[in-house]
């Protein structure tokens, strides 16, 4: 059940030049949040910036009642959040949105993350590992310095493959190329793909999964105001019907969608 939480900041560490890992004490959120869900954080009391900022849940520690978020400094809101320190309290709305579904029929989970898309993918890897599902994780970024969450993923019993576009670490090329390569080892009925990253990457994941008839889910990140389905600002197009274009809301119908649900080509 989503709710407003007043969350003390436990830590806020800088993990790369632009990326921070923020941990807040939020026992109820930690209990209720599922991988793929997000929270909407009020980063400032005043009216500028006005909106909350949505962040995928990166990690939970249910025993300690902690929730982790991973974010990059991209504008005023995230710059303010980067300044949050222990002793501060954040106003957090959540958990929001639709979570990842479990893999059907004991398929091998293949988790694909591009850039900061690693946030929900890390939480999913954490949960799947706890359930003994042995996920394989493909983590991609522009270059080695931009690979986030390597330390946390290395602590999990997952098979981790890296990809960088400049070849500075792991496979040289986009993580979707690595995905296409890895998929050749699986029958289409034997694997379940879960992906999060920039929309261009998700478009490619959608193409690959559709062409190979692989079960897959993608997690979208987009601009949103309310996070609860009221403003209808976070619309994404679905495949057009005879009635014309149609849209789904990332905050309420997603952020996790089946690869067949959306028309990311538009």
């Amino acid at each position, binding site marked *: 059940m989503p*709710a407003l939480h007043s969350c003390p900041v436990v830590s806020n560490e800088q993990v790369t030049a632009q990326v921070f890992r923020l941990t807040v004490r939020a026992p109820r959120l930690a209990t209720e949040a599922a991988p793929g869900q997000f929270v909407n954080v009020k980063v400032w009391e005043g009216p500028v910036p006005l909106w909350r900022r949505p962040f995928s849940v990166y990690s939970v520690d249910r025993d300690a009642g902690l929730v982790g978020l991973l974010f990059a400094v991209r504008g005023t809101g995230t710059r303010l959040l980067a300044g949050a320190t222990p002793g501060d309290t954040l106003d957090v709305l959540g958990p929001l949105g639709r979570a990842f579904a479990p893999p059907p029929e004991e398929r091998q989970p293949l988790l694909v993350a591009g850039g900061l898309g690693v946030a929900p993918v890390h939480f999913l890897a954490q949960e799947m590992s706890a359930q003994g599902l042995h996920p394989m994780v493909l983590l991609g970024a522009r270059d080695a310095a931009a690979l986030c969450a390597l330390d946390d993923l290395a602590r999990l019993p997952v098979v981790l493959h890296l990809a960088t576009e400049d070849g500075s670490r792991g496979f040289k090329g986009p993580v979707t190329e690595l995905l296409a390569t890895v998929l050749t080892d699986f029958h289409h009925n034997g694997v379940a793909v879960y992906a999060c990253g920039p929309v261009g990457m998700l478009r490619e994941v959608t193409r690959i999964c559709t062409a190979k008839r692989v079960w897959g889910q993608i997690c979208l990140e987009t601009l949103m105001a309310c996070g*609860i389905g009221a403003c209808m600002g976070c619309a994404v197009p679905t495949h057009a019907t005879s009635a014309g274009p149609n849209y789904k809301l990332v905050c309420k119908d997603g952020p996790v969608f089946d690869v067949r649900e959306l028309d990311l080509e538009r």
Partner: protein
Amino acid sequence: MSADLRVSIGSLTLNNPVLVASGTFGYGEEFAPYFDLSVLGGVVTKTITLEPRAGNPPPRIAETAAGMLNSIGLANVGVEVFVREKLPALQRYSTAIIVNIAGRSADEFKAVLRRLEECDLRIDGYELNYSCPNVKEGGMAFSARPDVAYEVTVALRKETTRPLIAKLTPNVTRIGEIARAVAEAGADAVSAINTLVGMAVDHRTRTPKLATVVGGLSGPAIKPVALAKVWEIKNAVSIPIIGVGGIQNYEDVLEFMLVGASAVQVGTANFVTPDCAARIVRDLESYCDREGIDRLADLVGRLNVEC
């Protein structure tokens, strides 16, 4: 002894002056996890049209300084689904249910209204969306010209005895004239204001931030404009005014009431703080207790303008 927060909008008595604005509160149920909707003076539901509408292509929203731009495009489920699936869920709350309606023509407005009049569900009033800037057909045109606003209101007045509230656009030269036209046509009240036409640009990509290029500006940034429009209307007509525009806290409500609004609608603030309207009601109660005010409605129009 708690203060009397009740206010009257024509024949309609609200438990308190705090409503939530159309398009910012979904169909109501979206906010049920955050507070008991019965504490509100009223819920104004998302604009309903005769047929379902998918809305405008994304991007539909942009954040601006102390405000937001939207071009949702009246996305809604259409009147049939609204009556069947959305309106029943609101019945259990003891708050006024105001259904906001729109049409591309006077006939389409009438068709929506008739369908709602036919249903056996509780509806406490209608808000007529004469003022959405985000649809190509109709929309703002209905409240941009006094003669058109008059004719449509006369036509709708014949269809119902329930309170009719005309929501006016600020994107006109003289909003008082439009208010006078709808008052003469039989509207019981006006809501002022709808969003201001605005625009946001990304200088890096050299593109507009909205797919529709321009959209409707809302939020705290427009409060001074809304107060001025309420003041202008107050000096033009005697029907009640519902103030809308940038209300975030109880002090904003007091300002609108002093200027002449009998009630207010909380809009964009619902997106930021889902229980914002409920907090405002609580804070108004505390304010009255603290200040020894017995009847909040006594503040309406009590602005001291001798300076």
